[in-house]
């Protein structure tokens, strides 16, 4: 049995099929989940993909948080289900209060896409165990509202508890506080990041293969033996 990893499609999700492809390339079975249903279909982990759910109107992720699927997902995440939020998915996790802070408009006010160097600050989460601590990776970043913001106290707490998972290197693409690209909850099962690991899984289409590690990590975390990288 390979791991079954759910990928939620909200109205306006865009990278859902890309996330499914990455799950497949990592050796697990992608399971499409629908925003309008509360059922999680017995999946072992869930990915909230990138995109512009509900047009990203008001604030990214603000409306998606009220989707029926989030009711069950929030409880399941609190119960330990591994959940990865990528870009818009990260925004949804913050708006749902599964992760602290919020993503605001980039300081330069434009959408920006580029290959981004990151440092893996925490390799003990459900999605980062295949990285070495401090490993530097290249993953594309592309967003207009990616600037991580939280109050000083929260930021200190995140740093103190090692919950900053990824940090921007060689320039901060959005003005995110303390160069934060991704964070985790205290238990390490919920991870959110702005860059797109699902766009760094194939030589043909990606600037690197560094993103694959996040998907193989969660498969390992789930105790499955699926062959990675096939």
């Amino acid at each position, binding site marked *: 049995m390979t791991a079954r990893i759910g990928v939620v499609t909200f*109205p*306006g999700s*865009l*990278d859902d*099929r*890309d996330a499914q*492809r990455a799950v497949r390339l990592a050796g697990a079975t992608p399971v499409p989940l629908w925003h*309008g249903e509360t059922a999680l279909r017995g999946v072992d982990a869930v990915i909230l993909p*990138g*995109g*512009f759910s*509900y*047009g*990203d*109107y008001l604030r990214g992720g603000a409306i998606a948080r009220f989707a029926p699927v989030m009711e069950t997902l929030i409880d399941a995440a609190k119960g330990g289900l591994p959940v990865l939020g990528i870009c818009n998915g990260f925004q949804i996790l913050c708006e749902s209060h599964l992760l602290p802070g919020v993503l605001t408009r980039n300081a330069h006010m*434009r*959408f*920006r*896409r*580029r290959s981004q160097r990151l440092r893996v600050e925490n390799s003990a989460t459900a999605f980062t165990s295949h990285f070495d601590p401090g490993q530097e990776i290249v993953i*594309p970043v*592309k967003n*207009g509202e990616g600037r991580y913001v939280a109050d000083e106290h929260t930021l200190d707490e995140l740093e103190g508890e090692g919950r900053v998972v990824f940090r921007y290197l060689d320039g901060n693409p959005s003005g995110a506080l303390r160069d934060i690209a991704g964070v985790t909850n205290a238990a390490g099962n919920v991870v959110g990041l702005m860059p*797109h690991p*699902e*766009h760094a899984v*194939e030589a*043909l*289409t*990606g600037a690197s293969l560094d993103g694959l590690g996040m998907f193989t990590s969660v498969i390992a975390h789930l105790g499955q033996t699926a062959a990675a990288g096939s």
Partner: protein
Amino acid sequence: MTGKHEAADVEQVDQELNLDTVEIAAKTPDEVQPYAELGLRDDEYAKIREILGRRPTGSELAMYSIMWSEHCSYKSSKVHLRKFGEKNPTNTRMLAGIGENAGVVAITDELAVTFKVESHNHPSYIEPHQGAATGVGGIVRDILAMGARPIAVMDTLRFGDAEHPDTKRVLPGVVSGISFYGNCLGLPNIGGEVVFDASYQGNPLVNALSVGVLPASRLQNKAASGVGNVVVLLGQKTGKDGIGGVSVLASATFEDDATDNRPSVQVGDPFVEKLLIESCLEMYDAGLVVGIQDLGGAGLTCALSETAAAAELGMYVDLERVPLRDATMEPHEVLASESQERMLLIVNPSKVEDVLAVAEKWGVLATAIGTVTAASPEGGGGRLIINWHGQTVVDCPPGSLADDGPVYHRPIKEPNDRALIAADRAETLPRPSTDAELRETVLKMAATPNLADKTWITEQYDDMVGGNTALSMPDDAGVLRLDGTGAVDPNIGPLGIALSTDGNGRFARLDPYTGAQLAIAEAYRNVAVTGATPIAASDCLNFGSPEDPHVMWQFAQAVEGLADACAQLGVPITGGNVSFYNQTGMTAIHPTPVVAVLGVLDDVRRRVPMGFANDGDVIILLGE
């Protein structure tokens, strides 16, 4: 009129007095109508009266003025565009060509690709962000209407002088509009052009391309066939977007100050467009639609008349069923509205419920507004009958709107400065002869906006969403993997397509015939160097006023050049777009034919990027 109105309340009377019905039109032949204000000539208005056998109603007048406009009828370009058809190389790949929403070419027996370039120049000058955004939205719906899933966009842009204050207004807005709409739709932007030239100062060019892929068996068409089939309007509510021109009809006296009815800018909602795409694709796959047409510039007027005309049948519409954003809209405004993110579907009555269910699943509005009716026994198609709360406001042959518009042979005259231009040879320019001069020339070139790095623009575009982009900026052509192909046998790679758009207004100004050929040659080369085989082309012809014989000469030359080049290269023009009246006062822009070439890679893994790959590789110069 009967006396029954006397009992009605004042408001009711008011409304009915303003409502110009077919019945009233028949009885009031001498009513003065603002056809000139609507852009119709005396002879055109006379022809409308002849077709109808009476004066047109206000709604009919609005429809004819829209459909017979240059934009919709191609009245000045038609006689020239025929050259494409005449000279196009015969091509068995072509599944749909000029005249359809977009050309469709077969890639394999099962798979086809559709692509097209379209302009949104004037709206982008008035409101750069929304104008450019809705330009992307419009071309994507054309692709969707063919049955395809849109998979990428490109944009070719022309601005005035980079230092001009108005360029600082227009450029960031245009780029943010394209970025916002395309990114939000999840369509990678895989290439384009940015050129600065003072000739575009008051007339920036925003040409957008979209490409889509479909199983050949899913090809859709726009014909409203099948008497009794239901006409369904899908998508955004209808508002007073872009009805500026016909607002003249709303004022009882034409001198009325119509400020309330000023042209209203269309605002794009890519979120609704994304839902429209997903719901249409689901409907195609379930075999729920008989015909489909996107609503573009001419709104319902164009969609209703073209779908009915294409089937040579009639159509009956209860216009008050159209969901409105503004309850005070009058029928001619509903017909002329350019509200975005709408599609018109023709559906078998047994499938209507399923269509509504799919729409509901995606949260898109769907409303049955009419039915397909029989052709007249005398032949010549059926009648398009549109009612407004039970009163007939339109009753005309749909073909007279869609196909029988005026056709002009505009005067053509070679510009007087041709000889001067020909004499002013590049060879006569001074050449740098010393190291210092050479250095200065190189620095000057590096500093020109046209050669400068375009990252400020391209980094605002998502080029990787979808996960199939195999080449994009900074390569000269975009390459996409066709997902799901080649997966069975690991030795056979997935198929790919390559696309490039090119144009050079300065060259075309010097010599439009050769300039157009250079544009297609460049796009063709850019596609070929990726390893792809070029198979088809689409074009967007941006010119000044067709009423200027010099412009018409440029146009005719460019079309001829392009058609001849296509014949020689063996790639057909599958569709395109003409944008006239790009001029300020008497001064036209450089004639700017923009050409997109599509190529196929039988194994996308073998695509060739442009940079030098490895240390020690040998560099060879091919050609003269």
